[in-house]
């Protein structure tokens, strides 16, 4: 239909063109809708987006070096690191002046901690030097070069100044390189020594084990969801309570219960030994390894798989199956060709939920994972709360986020995100 008639544009009751009046009404409606979601939007922005962006931005921030040692960084700019010579007196004098200010503000030890991530030994070098340099007067006591080398022999090492020069930028790629087992050295980017490479391995393990956990959730959850959707209301309710019961129990309690079940003197091993399936001397190792993590996490995440599957299966009319069978399909064909395709959106929704939850898990792997069943999140937790290397933790977190988004995008390309339903 066209909005132009022979007499000009169609007019609304008040004489304005209908198109414009319609647009105004729509705009007002949109604005009202926006106002309705505004509280949630602002809440999410303030409590979720902003802190996360703030945290992730630490993965590249490096202004601590130039803020603490401004003059030194400037003086080092003209120093040729490849010459193999120590910097000249001007650098040492600038460093002494910077340190005097930093010691006063108690910032030098913090910088030592930051640089210790790049080269072991900086932490104590700054702390010890700080104590002795307090007594130096940044004007009267010149020259400083020999005095500083006397205070700590590290200041007489070309390597020390190279590290300072390399890491003096406001932004750094160092944390991201560390996150993939590489490092930023004065001579460019290099891999970490092999005996320190662990993070890429943990990323890979996290992804593979999460896939296995998602897979076993599908295998275990599908029949249960089917049973839920196809029983009488009474039985379905009872079953649903059984599915939800563990959901209402504390995560730590459930994980610890698995410990009691799986350990070598635990319930499962005792029973197996008692019925004679397993010799007493050779009990099964079911925990503190990948198997333990997979079992415990599958159990913990199972409701997240069953519930979306159940709500999708509920919408599939049972008459379709009957129709297929009456047309001559076997039980299997009827299920595989008619029922299963309709339940795929539920599997998709459940899988995304379980997979995304499991790659971020750390409490359960920490308790039952031993050494080979821990995830990348365990390292992130270590760097947040123990080593205080928040830059590296942020870099690891950013990479994890990007990997999830990539997988989500791949899922959308292969299965289609429209094909996901929560009910």
């Amino acid at each position, binding site marked *: 239909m066209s909005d132009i008639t022979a007499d000009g544009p169609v007019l609304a009751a008040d004489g304005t063109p209908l198109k414009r009046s319609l647009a105004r009404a729509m705009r007002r409606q949109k604005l009202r809708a926006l106002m309705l979601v505004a509280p949630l939007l602002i809440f999410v922005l303030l409590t979720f987006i902003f802190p996360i962006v703030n945290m992730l931005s630490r993965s590249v921030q490096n202004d601590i070096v130039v803020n603490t040692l401004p003059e030194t960084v400037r003086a080092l700019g003209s120093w040729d690191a490849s010459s193999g010579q120590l910097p000249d007196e001007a650098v040492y004098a600038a460093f002494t002046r910077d340190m005097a200010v930093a010691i006063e*503000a*108690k*910032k030098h*030890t*913090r910088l*030592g*901690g930051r640089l*210790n*991530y790049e080269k*072991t*030994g*900086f*932490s*104590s070098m700054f*702390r010890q030097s700080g104590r002795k340099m307090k007594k130096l007067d940044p004007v009267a006591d010149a020259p400083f070069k020999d005095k500083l080398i006397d205070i700590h022999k590290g200041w007489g090492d070309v390597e020390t100044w190279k590290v300072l020069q390399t890491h003096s930028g406001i932004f750094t790629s160092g944390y991201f390189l560390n996150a993939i087992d590489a490092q930023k050295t004065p001579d460019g980017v290099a891999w*970490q020594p092999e*005996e*320190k*490479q*662990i993070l890429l*391995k*943990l990323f890979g393990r996290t992804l593979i084990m999460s896939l296995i956990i998602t897979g076993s959730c599908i295998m275990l959850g599908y029949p249960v969801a089917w049973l839920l959707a196809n029983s009488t209301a009474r039985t379905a309710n009872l079953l649903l309570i059984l599915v939800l019961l563990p959901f209402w129990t504390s995560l730590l309690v459930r994980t610890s219960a698995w410990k009691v079940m799986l*350990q*070598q*003197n635990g319930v499962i091993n005792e029973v197996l030994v008692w019925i004679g399936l397993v010799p007493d001397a050779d009990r099964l190792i079911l925990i*503190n390894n990948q198997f333990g993590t997979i079992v415990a996490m599958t159990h913990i995440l199972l409701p997240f798989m069953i519930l979306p599957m159940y709500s999708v299966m509920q919408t599939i009319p049972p008459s379709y199956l009957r129709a297929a069978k009456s047309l001559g399909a076997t039980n299997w064909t009827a299920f595989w060709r008619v029922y299963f395709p309709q339940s795929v959106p539920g599997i998709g929704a459940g899988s995304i939920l379980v997979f995304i939850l499991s790659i971020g898990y750390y409490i359960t792997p*920490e308790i039952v994972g*031993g*050494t*080979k069943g*821990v995830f990348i999140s365990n*390292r992130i937790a*270590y760097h*947040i*709360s*123990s*080593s*205080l*290397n928040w830059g590296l933790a942020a870099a690891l977190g950013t990479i994890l986020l990007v990997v999830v988004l990539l997988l989500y995008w791949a899922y959308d390309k292969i299965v289609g995100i429209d094909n996901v339903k929560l009910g």
Partner: protein
Amino acid sequence: MKLSNLLAASTALTLVAGLAAAEDMTIVSWGGAYSASQKGAYHDPYSANTGVNIINDDSSAEAVAKLRAMNEAGNVTWDVVDVVAADAIRLCDEGLALEIDADTMLADAPDGTKASEDFGDLLVSDCFIPQIVYSTTFGYRTDLVGDTAPTSVCAVFDTDAYPGKRSLEKRPINNMEWALLCDGVAKDAVYDVLATEEGQNQALAKLDTIKDDVIWWSAGADTPQLLADGEVIMGSTYNGRLFAAIEEQKQPIGMLWDAQVFDLDGWIIPAGLSPERQARALDYIMFATDTQRLADQAQYISYGPARKSSAPLVGKHKTLGIDMAPHMPTDPNNAKNTFLYNYEFWADYRDDIDAKFQAWLAK
């Protein structure tokens, strides 16, 4: 007036109105039996004397990270924090803890000895007020180790004489030292060796010989539980945990004090408190770390008081009625061969060696 000030002021007003001027003070500690011992020895008498209401927060395990976050947000809600010495050093390094002058801010010993002398070497950081000496040591199942109970820490590495699982902490600290010690390195040379690449590899190679027999723990309660369940025949943990398992729960566990590693636990006061809160925190610290109070804590838990002058005052356990002195890690019978945690070394090498250790674990 800034909005935050306004909010703080109005909150304070409501609190004052609601609590009829009762002062609150938040003290952060480790929870469990340890917090209970502090409550009995310090908090309750202090509250009775001053009327200050003490709120316990069991967040010490994450204290460093949380204090850093609070400091960045400009809102420190803790008044006194219980941390291990290594964490105190880092908090001091980061400028997150108040520097303490022991002689003016802490109580003298009853005989007039200055606090700095009474605590002596245990004042390992300018911000740290030591409270207890604890040790990480081994316990073993007396019924599972056979006829000859282990007497040396190297029994941990001897799977022929003592077959079975052992539990060790999932971190390099202590384990690397024990490994080198049992690989023939002299005690004085351990940290020099550990500072080198070869030394680190040597320690890991020694640990490699028992890797398949180790269950790695991350919470202090793990080893006592594993021992009680018979999952391991020996394992490392804090001596107070073993004391509780042996004396309070009557488990068949023996103590292997050999090469126990001493560590310190104590207080810090966060930097950036308001003058009133800081004054109150200092007042509490002055009270809680005096000679008698430190000795009192030993009635509840088997950790040694950090003051020399407190040692003679250690008495009997409050409920069990047994003498506490023989259960202290510092008792001469237990302290024949000891190790002191090397704070400077681990502040430098922690990240480096930890990366190697974790990579080795994952291999």
